[in-house]
């Protein structure tokens, strides 16, 4: 089924996708002419496939649960923000705060993601085939961020328990973020994540970064880091 956003109102398209009749077998949808509109496919809850043909605006696929959403273009700020489960695949580049605060599911970005990718992420797996901008994984709590390109300044600032894997260069690490040992367990996990994104880069080519856990509790000796 094709929804043409040149002819239909965004709100009516989102409403239809948010209220799928489970008794029917229609599970494949296409959205054409998105023209940079905001909040396309926000709040989906069913296991359906949606392909968006073109560039979208802010908060695309926000709060997603179960749905499999493909964007054949670039996305604006906050793609898959607060996603709970399901999969979002961006074929172009992503703007800032991709996958922000997301609890679960998988976000794959074929191009680059700009600043604050995975800010405050809480369990999502994010795989970026290009590079990420500054302050990525800021206050990230859980889940995995995989970057096949380079990372910008202050990667993983004030990090909790997210694992960050970067293949390229890291411009600088944020407060309390440090390089960690890559154990067999991590290599297996990373391989699985890369496979999900259709990448066959070897896990050995990546470095792992995580929390030094020095900022968990207030310590007067660390005051300069706050």
């Amino acid at each position: 089924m094709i929804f043409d956003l040149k002819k239909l109102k965004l709100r009516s398209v989102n409403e239809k996708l948010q209220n799928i009749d489970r008794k029917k077998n229609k599970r494949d949808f296409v959205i054409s002419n998105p023209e940079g509109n905001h909040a396309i496919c926000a709040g989906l809850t069913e296991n359906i496939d949606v392909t968006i043909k073109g560039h979208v605006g802010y908060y695309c696929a926000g709060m997603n649960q179960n749905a499999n959403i493909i964007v054949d273009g670039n996305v604006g700020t906050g793609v898959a923000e607060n996603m709970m489960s399901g999969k979002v695949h961006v074929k172009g580049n992503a703007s800032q705060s991709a996958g922000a605060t997301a609890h679960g599911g998988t976000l794959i970005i074929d191009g680059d993601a700009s600043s604050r990718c995975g800010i405050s992420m809480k369990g999502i797996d994010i795989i970026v085939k290009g590079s990420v901008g500054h302050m990525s994984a800021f206050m990230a709590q859980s889940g995995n961020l995989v970057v096949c390109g380079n990372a910008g300044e202050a990667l993983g600032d004030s990090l909790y328990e997210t694992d960050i894997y970067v293949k390229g260069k890291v411009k600088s690490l944020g407060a309390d973020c440090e390089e960690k040992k890559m154990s067999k367990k991590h290599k297996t996990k990373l391989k699985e994540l890369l496979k999900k994104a259709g990448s066959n880069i070897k896990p050995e080519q990546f470095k792992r970064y995580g929390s030094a856990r020095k900022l968990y509790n207030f310590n007067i000796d660390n005051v300069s880091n706050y």
Partner: protein
Amino acid sequence: MCGIVGIYLKSKKFEKSLGGMLSKMLVSMETRGPDSAGFAIYNSDKNKIYKYSICLNEMSFEKFKKEIKKKLKFTSIEKNSDHIILKSIEKPNKILPILESFVEISLVGYGKSIEIFKQVGSPSNVVKKFKLDNFSGTHAIGHTRMATESAITTNGSHPYSTGEDECLVHNGSLSNHNNIRRKLKKNGSKFNSDNDTEVAAGYISDSLKKRNLKQTLNKGLSDLDGFYTFIAGTHSGFAVLRDEIACKPAVIAETKDYVAISSEFQAMAHLPNVNNAKIFEPEPGIVYSWGK
């Protein structure tokens, strides 16, 4: 909030439709700035004629025409809603003091190629009022305003022009504009509002006396404190700069015919061949410029 837009044409192909392209961009940025809107449009500067863009405010066109004819002989005046474009071969150092003697009017910009129109009201009304669709040119910059730190007036609207063929639009806010305004005033700069962007425009004009636009904006990174995405226009093109934290958005689309910039992609969705354009976000703290 605020929305900013700009187009620089690399080829002559779209010169006649520049106004129409910019008009749609401004209207789609109405959600980011419903209070007022404005645009600067650059047209050929091959001749020696200066154009002065003036907002008449409360003054009647007839009265202005009568008074100005007494002071200036060889001028032509074109009326466009409550704005006029005064054309003269006389140099700005002669004309500007004359225009300053008209206390009711506001000079919104001047130069050999720039024309500026800006007014309070929704962007769709403003572009209709000034018939932006009919304009042609080589490059253009526009702004939709959601006022945060100074009054909603013509003088509070963007673009700000503080020098010949110069203009600036800004999404964001500056925190040290009062200090910079004081310094610039000491050096002879004049300001018509309490607006922070006008100070940034004045800063750029002052610096351009000694540096080029790229050097000026690079210096601005350390001197201007606050959040911003700027588009600064000159007679030959424009430059884009985002602050180093990149709080304010910007997206650029480049094809072989044009470079377009806007706060959100949706403002460019209607542009010709945009789906095949190279689309990217300008990186924070880096000056991007296009020009002849």
